[in-house]
C-alpha cells in the first residue's frame, strides 16, 4: 500500500517532455493547476484534459503510472464527491436515505472529481518526467530573487532534493518494519483508533531511529565529498532554455488564451 505513492518518483524515458527545462515544466504545471482552479467550466476541463493527454502521450509515461498516482488521493476524491452529491441544493432526482440527490449535485461532484484527477495527473506528470534534482534546481533558479531578502534558497532546495531521494527508501523501510513487527504478533488492523495508533509505536520508533541514522550517514557522505553549501558551487547540468522550451511557452500562452476564452468569454457569448 505504501509503495503506491508515485508522487516524487521519476519514470526514466527519453522524451521531449523529459528533456524540457525543468523551469518550463514547473511554470507550465503551475499555470495548468491555476487554470483548473480559476475556472469551473466543462469546456475548460475538456481543454485541460486534451492538454494533459497530449503531454502524456509525448512523455511516454505509461498511463498505468498516472493511475497508480491516484491511489493515495482516491479517498479524498470519493469523499468530496459524496459531500457534493449530498449537500447541493436543487431539483431532487431521488432520495438517498436522508439526502436528496440533485442533478446539480451530481454535476458538481463530477466536476470536483474531474478537477482533482486532472490536478493529480498534472503534478504527477511533472514529477514523473523530471528528476527531483532537476526539479529542485528549477525551484532554486526560480526562487533566486528571494536571495536578496536572505532567504536560504540553496539550502531549502538541497533539503527538498534529499527528502525526495529518501522518501522511497523510508517507504520501503516502513514496509519492512511493519512486517517484522507482524512477525512478532503485532496487530495493526483491529481495535479502535486509539488502539491502532498505539499499535503503530513499534513501527514509528524504529523508523525515526533509522531516519536519523540515514541522515547522519548522508551528512557525512556529503561532507566527505566536499559539500560546503551553495558558495562556489558549479552545476553539472546548468539550466538553459532551448528552442523546445520557447515553443512550449508559446503553446502555454495559446492554452491560456484558449482557457480564458472558454472559461470567461464563451459563457457570455452563449448567454
Amino acid at each position: 500500500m505504501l509503495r503506491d505513492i508515485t508522487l516524487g518518483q521519476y519514470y526514466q524515458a527519453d522524451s521531449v517532455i523529459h528533456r524540457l527545462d525543468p523551469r518550463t515544466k514547473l511554470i507550465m504545471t503551475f499555470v495548468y493547476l491555476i487554470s483548473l482552479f480559476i475556472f469551473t467550466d466543462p469546456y475548460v476541463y475538456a481543454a485541460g484534459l486534451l492538454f494533459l493527454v497530449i503531454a502524456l502521450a509525448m512523455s511516454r509515461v505509461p498511463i498505468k503510472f498516472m493511475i497508480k498516482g491516484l491511489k493515495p488521493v482516491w479517498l479524498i476524491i470519493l469523499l468530496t464527491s459524496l459531500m457534493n452529491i449530498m449537500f447541493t441544493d436543487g431539483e431532487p432526482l431521488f432520495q438517498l436515505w436522508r439526502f436528496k440527490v440533485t442533478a446539480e449535485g451530481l454535476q458538481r461532484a463530477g466536476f470536483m472529481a474531474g478537477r482533482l484527477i486532472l490536478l493529480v495527473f498534472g503534478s504527477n506528470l511533472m514529477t514523473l518526467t523530471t528528476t527531483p534534482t532537476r526539479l529542485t534546481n528549477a525551484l532554486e533558479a526560480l526562487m533566486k530573487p528571494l536571495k536578496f531578502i536572505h532567504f536560504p534558497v540553496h539550502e531549502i532546495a538541497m533539503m527538498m532534493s534529499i527528502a525526495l531521494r529518501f522518501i522511497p527508501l523510508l517507504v520501503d523501510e516502513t514496509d519492512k518494519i511493519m512486517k517484522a513487527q507482524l512477525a512478532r504478533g503485532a496487530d495493526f488492523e483491529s481495535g479502535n483508533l486509539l488502539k491502532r495508533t498505539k499499535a503503530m509505536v513499534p513501527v514509528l520508533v524504529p523508523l525515526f531511529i533509522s531516519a536519523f541514522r540515514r541522515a547522519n550517514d548522508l551528512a557525512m557522505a556529503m561532507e566527505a565529498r566536499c559539500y560546503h553549501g551553495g558558495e562556489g558551487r558549479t552545476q553539472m547540468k546548468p539550466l538553459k532554455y532551448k528552442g523546445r522550451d520557447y515553443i512550449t511557452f508559446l503553446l502555454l500562452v495559446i492554452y491560456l488564451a484558449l482557457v480564458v476564452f472558454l472559461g470567461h468569454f464563451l459563457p457570455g457569448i452563449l448567454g
Partner: protein
Amino acid sequence: MRNEDKKTIEDSRIPLLVADHLVYEYETGSANTVRALDDVSFTIYPGEFIGLIGHTGSGKSTLAETLNALLTPKSGSIYFKGEDVFTKGYDRKKLRSHVGLVFQYPEHQLFEETVFKDVCYGPKNIGMSRKQAELTAYETIKKVGLPDECFYHSPFDLSGGQRRRVAIAGVLAMKPELLVLDEPTAGLDPKGREEILDMIAGLKNEDNMSIVLVSHSMEDVARYADRIMVMDKGKKLFDDVPSEVFAHADELEKIGLAAPAVVSVMHRLKEAGIPVDDRMALTTDEAVSEIMKAFGV
C-alpha cells in the same frame, strides 16, 4: 557416511511444515512481473537445521516471508502441522508464534526503552499473561547469552552483536517450533558471526527446534546445516545433505555460488590421486582428519 541412510527414517516422521507448489510473483517498477517463487515444494521435519542458500534476488527472502504467511502466494500453499495456513479463518497471528521469523538486521526493529520490555512485546501480543510473558522473556534473554545487567539497559546502548541477540530473543520468546532467520550474521565480525550461529545451533540441539538459516555463506551453512536448499531465480535447485549439494560444484558455480574452500581443496586433492574421501569433509577439522588419514597418520 553423513546422513546417508537418514532418508528412510525421515519419511516416517511427522512433518512440521509442508510447502506445496508455492508460486509468488511481484511487479517491479516497469511493466514486467518477476517470479520470486516458481513452483517450490519441500517438507520440514521437527529438529531439522536447514540452510537456505542463494544469491540476492533468488527468492530466498520471499520464501522466508511466505513461511509465516506474511506473504500470500499466488498459488500453492503452506501446511503447518497438516493445516492449510491460507484458508479463511486460520489464525495467522498464532502461526507467527509457531513459525518465528527473524529479519535481516533485526536490531533495527527494536523500539522499547529496555531490553526486557522489548523481548516481552511478542509474548504479550500472542496473549501470554504479563507474568508468563516476563518469565519467558527472562529465560529467553538468558538463553541468547546476554548478561543479567543488560536487562534494564536501553537496547540502543548495547554493542551491535548484543543488540542482535536482543532482537532474536524477541522472536524466540514467542516459543516458535520453527525458527527462520534471514541472514542473521550480516554485518557482524567473524567472531560475532560464529557466536550467533553457535547460539542458533544450540537451539536446535537443546530445544529440538527446527531451523531455517537463510544465508549466502556456504561456509556457515556447511558447518551447521543437516540439509541445504539452493534457490536460483525462484526455483529450488538442490535440496539434499550438504555433501551431496557440494558435489555439484560446477552447477553451483554457474549460478554464482561456490562450494566452501575446504570442499574444493579436498576435491582437488582427490583428483591429484591422494586417497581422501572428498564427501567426508565439510569443515576444516573434518578435512584435517581426512587428510591425515590419507597420510597414514
